[in-house]
């Protein structure tokens, strides 16, 4: 394992829109798996990723119930990353841009996500060994 470092990631894509979200979550997972402390700053549409009211749904076209469909909800991925970090003993800090949250009405977030501002992103980046911004196109 690498020496423990602090890595910050900025995400901007809303859920269910882009493969970038999948790749971003895979990067977060790999970073925690390697024992690094991870910060996430969610900006614009990405603040909906930990929205607590996301609900899995059935698939009537294929005749599958919600349980059979196992529709993924990103809030569970966020929670799973936080749980993984707790198990590994590393830090995991998810900050949602508050203005972006208010614009979109997604204030109810899973417990591991907190409200902040772009100033938090600056502080995170300043305190990190490295920062990756995954912007929308």
């Amino acid at each position, binding site marked *: 394992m*690498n020496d423990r470092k602090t890595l910050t990631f900025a995400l901007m894509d809303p859920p269910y829109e882009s493969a970038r979200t999948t790749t971003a979550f895979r990067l977060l997972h790999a970073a925690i798996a390697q024992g690094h402390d991870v910060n996430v700053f969610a900006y614009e549409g990405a603040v909906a990723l930990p929205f607590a009211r996301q609900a899995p749904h059935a698939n009537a076209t294929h005749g599958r119930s919600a349980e059979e469909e196992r529709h993924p909800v990103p809030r569970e991925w966020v929670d799973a990353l936080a749980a993984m970090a707790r198990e590994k003993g590393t830090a995991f800090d998810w900050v949602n841009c508050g203005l972006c949250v208010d614009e979109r009405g997604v204030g109810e977030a899973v417990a591991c996500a907190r409200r902040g501002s772009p100033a938090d992103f600056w502080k995170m980046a300043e305190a990190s060994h490295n920062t990756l911004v995954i912007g929308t196109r």
Partner: protein
Amino acid sequence: MANYLFFESRDVFESNDVQRLCELAIQLRRAGHGVALFLVQNGTLSARAGVAASRLHQAIAAGVHVLADEFALAERGIGTERLAGGVEVAPLGEAVGLLAAGWKAAWH
């Protein structure tokens, strides 16, 4: 000298900027910097042998370390036998390792 890590997520036939990013990688490498180009998502389509992604081949020839995300390759049904020479198949965790090592990173 610095080290640079570029993530390329776009298909070369979708965006001409892919070629521009390769040019940047080549110039940085020729200036003596360490450069890694990590192909993810549709960026891995450029890694196939026979694709006319000339700048990618030039980047490899120039010494840019070109890696392709094994997950993205599998998603797209691209077997390792179909990759251009010089492209290394890698898990995304290798990119995290470079981030942790302080490589300056940019996403495209």
